[in-house]
């Protein structure tokens, strides 16, 4: 099953993004720091990486993004940079574009997240129709 990876150092964001994506039919793996990225990139069936750029524990920011692209096996992996550092996005817009990164500035809602993810994945990557789960029936 195709895997979407999320790396963010804020546990609440990580949990919520995992919930939103899982509810939409994706299989999700998570990491909390820059050191986790290497292991995640080696993950089988990885089809998308959603990455914060301000991470503890190692190379971060543009250096991390460049390092990912330098690896032949991840040179073409779709990557979504989700960050609250809008200055970073603004000042590195050219570099991010040339490296082929998409961006999702915080704050974002679940619809924006799902739209972004869907736009980065070929239709076949999502096994189930990628629509949100219906709300649970409270009367049951």
């Amino acid at each position, binding site marked *: 099953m195709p895997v979407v990876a999320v790396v963010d150092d*804020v546990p*609440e*964001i990580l949990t*919520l*993004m995992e*919930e*939103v994506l899982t*509810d939409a039919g994706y299989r999700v793996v998570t990491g909390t720091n820059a050191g986790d990225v290497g292991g995640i990139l080696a993950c089988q069936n990885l089809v998308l990486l959603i990455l914060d750029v*301000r991470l503890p524990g190692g190379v971060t*920011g*543009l*250096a991390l993004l460049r390092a990912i692209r330098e690896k032949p096996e991840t040179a073409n992996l779709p990557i979504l940079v989700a960050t*609250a*550092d*809008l*200055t*970073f996005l603004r*000042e*590195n817009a050219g*570099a991010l574009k040339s490296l082929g990164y998409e961006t999702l*500035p*915080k*704050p*974002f*809602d*679940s*619809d924006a*997240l799902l739209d972004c993810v869907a736009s980065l994945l070929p239709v076949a990557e999502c096994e189930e129709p990628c629509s*949100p*789960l219906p*709300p*649970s*029936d*409270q009367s049951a």
Partner: protein
Amino acid sequence: MDGEQREPESLVNMRTHLTVLTLAVGQLRRRHGKTDDIERLCAFADAAIQQLKADITDVEAMLFQSESREQSHMTHLRLRQSVTADSRKQETGPLGLPPDVQHGRTS
């Protein structure tokens, strides 16, 4: 390029906390939104989220204005320093000596 400028930590944190709130309300509504009470409380949270977004935009505008003012002040200072240095040069001549000394007109 790697000398990345950083935004004020508090502003980045505000956006992060707002993301948590937005995603949490979204999940609450997606999973349990049929209950009237939950919908009513989510509506309060939605209103607060919109207000916080507007507040953040205001803070960003204030920061931008303050940075622009600082830049304009620095440009003005540099201009003044350069004018002062030029006028000193004129007073002293290119070699740093008074013009009459420079041109051998000492008496």
